[in-house]
């Protein structure tokens, strides 16, 4: 991660990172890392603060923060856990991953490198990627800008051309190496070993041997914690929920790595949007996403989050994000069938409904759950699509012979009172009754009236389901009150 000191302050996806404004990181009042815009203005590594401000007065200056860098490196390591369980941190902002066992699963070395690079981009960092048969060799290549060597022979050829100053134990002796005309690692390797060990110490030789695969290497592999909770501080106040997506993606990538490392699938995630602290402190806004089907891939979660964030109205600027995975369960990889179903699997359907629910709301994506009730408006119940209904429970609520009930397709949400003309109900045209009445009683415990339903036909030959209210004879109400007619449904 050559740009790590800078990118912990302005990630490459933020507006600062893509060259609009100059960012400069200082260590001990000297420039350590700088953005492209700053370099274009003439800022160079090693300059003092005053010089930077003279060349580029609007440059943003940051003090180097070791703890931010360590956090960032850990975040990247978590995200990379999705490729292999063997991830180790090495010196000088480098991560080592052992991909020997993952090549086939991820479709070869090129596809794997593409994936790692895409993940780094999504996390907001740029990195130099290298692959080599030995970890130290890969480390050296990465420090020199990246490169791939699949075989030991090509690695040795490449290593021999690298500058001698790349090895950390050799740096104190750089002047001496220059003096004896030893500029590359290849030349260093040809020096007599006992002399080299006496002058420069055993660490240098160990490192050279490790790079060439002559001594075994030992690493402290990073272990995934037992629970997942990741935080991200935004360095700006974000006022639009959609702008949070990049930050959320970064957290999701970390979670993906963690889930893969622990062989878990997540059933519920919680994203907290943290607002201003201090005097005008506000409780964080919590977004919860419940999944019908536990998953450990980030694409679907990202789509869900995008829809949720697009709907979310922020009441206050957001300064930080926090992602938790409160509900996890062991991962159950799908069993691939030989002949895929034409309409996609059940999981695909569930995923589609989740996406619809995320944008439209759970009350707007409904499935039918008819109730065993004789009143049509109560029998026609629809429930959110996520509710699990067993087939047996659904069948138990259905009438034994559906065809015996003349039920129209479209049930109006509220019956429409019909006009009367010539003693006939009128809806666009006079209605002619086409059936004998069907009496549907009211629920005696509720207010509704007993109704006599008729199928009526208008002059345009469309069929309507109308009812006549049966009046309850109550003292005080005129005996000859005309019956009231209502339109309740349409035959589709």
């Amino acid at each position, binding site marked *: 991660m050559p740009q790590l000191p800078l990118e912990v302050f302005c990630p490459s996806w933020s507006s600062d990172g893509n060259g609009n404004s100059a960012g400069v990181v200082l260590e001990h009042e000297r420039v350590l890392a700088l953005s492209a815009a700053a370099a274009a203005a003439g800022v160079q590594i090693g300059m003092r603060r005053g010089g930077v401000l003279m060349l580029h007065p609007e440059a943003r200056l940051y003090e180097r923060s070791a703890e931010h860098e360590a956090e960032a490196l850990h975040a990247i390591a978590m995200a990379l856990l999705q490729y292999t369980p063997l991830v180790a941190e090495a010196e000088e902002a480098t991560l080592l991953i052992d991909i020997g066992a993952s090549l086939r699963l991820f479709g070869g070395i090129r596809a794997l490198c593409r994936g790692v690079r895409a993940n780094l981009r999504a996390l907001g960092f740029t990195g130099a990627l290298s692959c080599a048969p030995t970890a130290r060799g890969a480390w050296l290549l990465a420090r020199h800008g990246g490169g791939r060597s699949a075989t030991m022979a090509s690695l040795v050829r490449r290593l021999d051309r690298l500058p001698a100053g790349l090895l950390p134990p050799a740096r104190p002796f750089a002047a001496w190496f220059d003096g004896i005309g030893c500029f590359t690692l290849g030349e260093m390797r040809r020096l007599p070993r006992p002399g080299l060990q006496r002058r420069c110490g055993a660490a240098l030789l160990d490192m050279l041997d490790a790079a060439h695969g002559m001594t075994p290497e030992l690493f402290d592999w990073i272990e995934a914690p037992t629970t997942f909770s990741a935080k991200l501080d935004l360095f700006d106040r974000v006022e639009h929920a959609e702008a949070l997506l990049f930050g959320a993606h970064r957290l999701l990538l970390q979670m993906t790595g963690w889930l893969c490392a622990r062989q878990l699938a997540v059933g519920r995630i919680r994203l907290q949007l943290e607002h201003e602290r201090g005097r005008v402190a506000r409780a964080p806004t919590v977004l919860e996403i419940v999944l019908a089907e536990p998953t450990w891939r980030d694409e679907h979660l990202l789509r869900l989050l995008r829809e949720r964030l697009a709907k979310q109205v922020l009441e206050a600027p957001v300064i930080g994000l926090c992602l938790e995975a409160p509900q996890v369960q062991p991962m159950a990889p799908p069993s691939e069938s030989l002949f895929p179903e034409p309409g996609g699997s059940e999981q695909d359907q569930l995923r589609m409904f989740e996406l619809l629910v995320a944008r439209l709301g759970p009350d707007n994506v409904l*499935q039918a759950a008819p109730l065993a009730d004789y009143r049509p408006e109560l029998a026609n119940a629809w429930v959110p699509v996520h509710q699990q209904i067993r087939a047996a429970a659904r069948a138990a609520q259905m009438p034994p012979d559906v065809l015996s009930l003349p039920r*129209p397709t*479209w049930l109006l949400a509220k019956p429409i009172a019909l006009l009367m003309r010539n003693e006939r109900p009128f809806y666009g045209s006079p209605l002619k009754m086409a059936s004998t009445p069907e009496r549907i009683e009211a629920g005696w415990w509720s207010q509704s009236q007993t109704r006599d339903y008729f199928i009526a036909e208008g002059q345009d030959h469309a069929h309507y389901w109308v009812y006549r209210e049966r009046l309850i004879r109550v003292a005080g109400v005129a005996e000859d009150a005309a019956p009231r007619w209502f339109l309740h449904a349409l035959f589709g």
Partner: protein
Amino acid sequence: MTLHQSITAPQALHPSLWLASQLAHASTRCVDTGHPTLSSQLPGGGWPTGTLIDLMLQQSGIGELRLLRPALAAGRRRIVLLQPPHPPQALALAALGLAPSQLIWIRTSGTSGSSDALWAAEQVLRSGSCGAVLFWQNHARGETLRRLHLAAHSGETLFFMLRPLAAAQDSSPAPLRLSLRPAPGGLDIEFVKRRGPQRDTPLFLPLPLPLTPFLLQRHATLDRALFAPVTARSILSELVQ
């Protein structure tokens, strides 16, 4: 000789060529409509899957679902009712042969309802995991229709758009457009657009209501003679207890 042949029968050159007096060949799989008279009038002999089918209704509730019933009931996959004008009644649809577990009702609300509905339609069509999508939309611009048509191409979903009769005047990318009007005992179907000869007279399709006999009023009610009034002593005294 071959040149002469190809000029006399140009429709034999390529499957996408047809004479103006013939029905076109289907380019996609077609689902039988279940109404033989209608099927014989459609290119491919049924509803084409994976394309936009425009149905223009005089009003909702004239028998549009009875028309689509055989095609919808043929598949066992889910049927999405997107933004129907009124709440659908699951029991009625069950009587039409569509099981309640197949039905998904998506409604939209608020100011963004129309764009939400279009978005949902596109998502459902692109996922291709549903058997049929019925989309009610009153106003649709040409480019949104085109977009939905393209989204439908990505799968094998049966996609009907149900729009008011006035939409027949507007252009549409749908290769099949029918307008439906109620007629005594059925529907009058007019072919606004199809890959085939122009047909001016509407096709009458009988679609009676699925009524049970006891509700059918086959005859007008007649005045019946009342029972003779019982006069005194007309009943034997033995029968009176």
